[in-house]
Each structure stands twice: as structure tokens, then as C-alpha cells.
């Protein structure tokens, strides 16, 4: 498939935005049950603003993917059958939750609504928005991933690994960003977020490698034989019916050499996994406020390469019909 920049930015930006929001909520829940020190309202509000910024930027990028962005509102109508439509509904819901969560923190509307249990877990509006927003965030990961995993013709994508990867890579980058944010503000949560970021990064390394291995040995269902229905082992296309390009030769091919693809795979395997893990560990040892930012930056750039590779790797059966100009 042709890796479109708009979709690469959309999926990586909102993945990190959702992850950052989940990190904030995780921090708040931990603080509520007194496992870590509570943070200031500004910490949550600023973090939410950052997460919302990422989600808005992702949404903005997605418009560049549409031929007719002015009609985008129509895309909410077929949610019964289309994962794309579901994402179009869940993404604004996600933004609304992040917005409410941040605003309530910022305005200090955190009086407990009720208290759970004898030990006294005070539940305020931000916790309600946080926990329900977390559910929306998970739903959004699933929607985004299912857009790809549900197209059975793209056999490289049609696997549960796709969902695991979108989820874990989003969480990894989001928690990494939370660590960077905490370090930048000089709070003591760098270790907390950094640890989770490393855990998610390592889990993602497992599922992403598994997907790469699966796809390397993938046997495609369709062949030139089934494509034109001729039973012979030797079939070669002599003409695809036109001499120059068409939508079919642009949208479904990445037009790069296998070497380029292999190199990009190496780059993302380094930048997404070992580099940020080492940087964040180093940051912990040195108590550096800037190294976690670098760790996130490296991982994000790596994720751009990862997403490019994700698209390039998928081979569409239609390509069988577009093998030779003449």
C-alpha cells in the first residue's frame, strides 16, 4: 500500500494523545489510592491540553487524506458496518472527554461527588471523566486498528497483532510523553511514567516483532491464477491496459526499493524500542529533565517510520492486475 503521510500522522498523533490522557488518568487513580503523591491541578490541565493538542493535530492531518473534507460530517452515518465511521464518532468523543477532564481540573471543580468504601476513595467529576474517558480511549484504539485489521484482503493487517500494536505503541508513546512532560515540569513522576513507558515499549516490541515474523512468512490467498481464472503455473502480465499511471498504480504501491523498506524497518526497530528505553533509563540515573523529552522525540520519529513500514508492508491482491505496463 502507499503510505499516506496524512494517515501516518493521524494514527501516531492520536495514539500518543490517547496514551498521554491514559497516563494522566492512571496517575490520578494512583494518587487517589495514595500510591503516589497527588499532582497539582495545573499538571493535569496542562497535560490534558497537550493530549488535546495531539488529538486535534491528528484530526487535522486526517482531513488531508480526504478528497472532499467539507463532507466529512457524513462519515458518521454508517457506524453499524464501518470501523472508519466508528472512529469518526469516537474521536470527537475522546476529545470531549479530554477537554472536560482538563477544564474541570483547571477550574478546580474537584469536590468529591461521593466517597467509595470505608477507607474513603473520594470520587470527583474529574475521576468520572477520567475513567470514562479511559474507556473511550481504549475504544478509539480498537476503532483505529480495526480500520486496518478488518480489511481481509490486506492479509498483513488482518490479524489481532494489528490491534495489539496500535494499542501498545500508542500507550508506550503516550506514557513516554507523560514522562517527558513530568520531567520538563520537574515533578517526581518521571520514574512512575517512565517505568510504565518501558513496560509498554517492551510489550509492543513483542507484538510488533511477532507481526513482522508472521508477515514475513505469509502466504497470500490470491494468485495470478485465481485473479484471471486460468489454471497454469506460468502466467505473466503483458499489458495492464494503459501505459502511464492510474489510481490503481499509485494507491496500492509504495514505489520504493526493497532496500529502502528494509532500512526503514531497521530504523524503526531501533528508534521505537531500544533507544527510548535506554534514554529514559539514563534520564532516571542522571535525573535529567531533558533526556525524557529526547526519548519521546526519538520514539515518535521511530513511530512515523513504523507506520510507514506498516503501510508499505501490506500487499493488496489488486496488485496482481497491475504488474506490467506493456
Amino acid at each position, binding site marked *: 500500500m502507499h503510505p499516506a503521510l496524512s494517515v501516518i500522522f493521524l494514527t501516531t498523533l492520536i495514539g500518543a494523545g490517547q496514551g498521554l490522557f491514559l497516563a494522566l488518568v492512571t496517575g490520578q487513580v494512583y494518587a487517589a489510592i495514595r500510591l503516589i503523591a497527588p499532582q497539582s491541578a495545573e499538571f493535569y490541565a496542562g497535560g490534558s491540553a497537550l493530549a488535546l493538542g495531539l488529538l486535534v493535530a491528528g484530526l487535522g492531518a486526517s482531513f488531508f487524506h480526504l*478528497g472532499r473534507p467539507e463532507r466529512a460530517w457524513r462519515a458518521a452515518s454508517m457506524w453499524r458496518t464501518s470501523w472508519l465511521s466508528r472512529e469518526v464518532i469516537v474521536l470527537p468523543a475522546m476529545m470531549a472527554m479530554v477537554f472536560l477532564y482538563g477544564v474541570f481540573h483547571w477550574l478546580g471543580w474537584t469536590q468529591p461527588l461521593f466517597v467509595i468504601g470505608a477507607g474513603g476513595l473520594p470520587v470527583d467529576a474529574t475521576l468520572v471523566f477520567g475513567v470514562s474517558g479511559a474507556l473511550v480511549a481504549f475504544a478509539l484504539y480498537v476503532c483505529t486498528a480495526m480500520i486496518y485489521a478488518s480489511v481481509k484482503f490486506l492479509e498483513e493487517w488482518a490479524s489481532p497483532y494489528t490491534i495489539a500494536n496500535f494499542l501498545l505503541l500508542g500507550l508506550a508513546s503516550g506514557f513516554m510523553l507523560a514522562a517527558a512532560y513530568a520531567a520538563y515540569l520537574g515533578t517526581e513522576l518521571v520514574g512512575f511514567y517512565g517505568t510504565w513507558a518501558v513496560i509498554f515499549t517492551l510489550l509492543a516490541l513483542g507484538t510488533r516483532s511477532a507481526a513482522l515474523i508472521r508477515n514475513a512468512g505469509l502466504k497470500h490467498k490470491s494468485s495470478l491464477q485465481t485473479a484471471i481464472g486460468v489454471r497454469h503455473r506460468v502466467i505473466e502480465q503483458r499489458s495492464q491496459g494503459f501505459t502511464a499511471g492510474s489510481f490503481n498504480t499509485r494507491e496500492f504501491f509504495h514505489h520504493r526499493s526493497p532496500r529502502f523498506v528494509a532500512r526503514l524497518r531497521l530504523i524503526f526497530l531501533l528508534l521505537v524500542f531500544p533507544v527510548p528505553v535506554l534514554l529514559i533509563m539514563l534520564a532516571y540515573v542522571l535525573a535529567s529533565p531533558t533526556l525524557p523529552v529526547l526519548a519521546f522525540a526519538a520514539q515518535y520519529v521511530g513511530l512515523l517510520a513504523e507506520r510507514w513500514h506498516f503501510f508499505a508492508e501490506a500487499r493488496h491482491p489488486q496488485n496482481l492486475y497491475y504488474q506490467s505496463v506493456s
Partner: protein
Amino acid sequence: MTQLALVIDLNVCVGCHACVTSCKQWNTSGWAGPMVDENPYGADPTGTFFNRVQTFEVGHYPATETVHFPKSCLHCEDPPCVPVCPTGASYKREDNGVVLVDYDKCIGCKYCSWACPYGVRELDAQQKVMKKCTLCIDRITDQTLPESERKPACVLACPTNARLYGDVHDPDSEVSIAIRERGGYALMPEWGTRPANHYLPRRKTYMHVSPEELQRADNPLTKEDLTVYTGEETLDDVTW
């Protein structure tokens, strides 16, 4: 229920591209707006087409065979391109089974083209909406046209009659009979899309002629020829 479709006879298609040009001519001139061409006389022309004729070579030289292979939307009975569309722009008509795109609703997200294994949907480079074969919906449903012309443009243009058109759900239609009796098959059956369009395979027709059929063993004339004449009056002498 009706399912209109094409049946394409690979045995007679000569790869002349008449269906490609007639399709483009008819559909670019219609009410739905042009099928845009870009840079048509330049080095790298590109444009929207509903129908393509491709050519494949089967086997090793000299034992090769050339297969000309026209390809357009197959109007699948279980079209995977329809449920993925977020706007409902892609739909299958209830009354005749034709799969269409509502150009006024399409947002050009290209998702449906990913969900078609046959590579027959094309995003129009200028109108930015998804386009594909409509089976000339504006011809075949136009009651003002004489019955004989209520057919897709490609079917009318084909000089070798390689394109048959009709209702594949009617067991007595020309297309159903052709599929049934001439080995009609669907493309990429492994995906379960159940294409309505079918293809008729290339066939070589052999006829076995035995020597007995060229020379009848019981030919009476041949028998008479065996007679040895010695100058006596024969049957020929008395009849003429």
C-alpha cells in the same frame, strides 16, 4: 430478485479496447460529470476509467497463449466495498443488484478501494470522489431507449460479442445459460465476494474425424467399382 451482470467470453475477446473507449465516451459525457483525464497528451497521462483490457501470456514460448482480459467492477453479490464505506455513498441497488457510488455523498476517503480485491475502483483525480463501473445505469434503466439499446455501452461496442449482459438470477437468461453451459467462472472465489460478473474460459474445439467418415465402407458405388467389366451391357448403358 434481479442481479444484472456481464459475462465476458475470453474465448472471443481479441483485446481491441473498444469496450474501454466506448465506456469512457458514454460515461464521461453523462450527467454524472466527466471522468477526468490529466495531462492527456503529455509524457505521463492519467485518467479515470471504469473498464480496462489487460493482456496476459500463459505458458512458455512457443507453447504460449495470449489471454485478453477485460476487467471492470464485478457487481459482487456480497460486495465487501459497501459495508466499509463510512458515508453510505457506496451501495448496492436493491432492485437490480448494481453496485454504485453516490458522488454527492462520497468524501473520497478511498477506504472502499482498499476493500475491493479486484482493483476496479478509481478515485477521480479532480472530482475527488470514488468512481467505478455503473453498468451504464443511466442507459439500462432509461425507458425511452429502445429495448435493444438498453444495454451497457461496452456490450453494444464489442465487435466480437465477447460481452453478454443480463440477469444472472434468471435461470433462462442468455447469461445464466452461458455460465451454466460454457463453464462460466468467478474471479478470486477465495474471498467469498460472489461476483455477479462471470468469465467464460478460453476453449479449443476439437473434432474427431475417423477414416470411415471420409470413405463410407458400405458405399454402393465403391462396391460396383470392384466389379470387373468385360464388355457386356451395364446398368449405365441402359439408363443413359
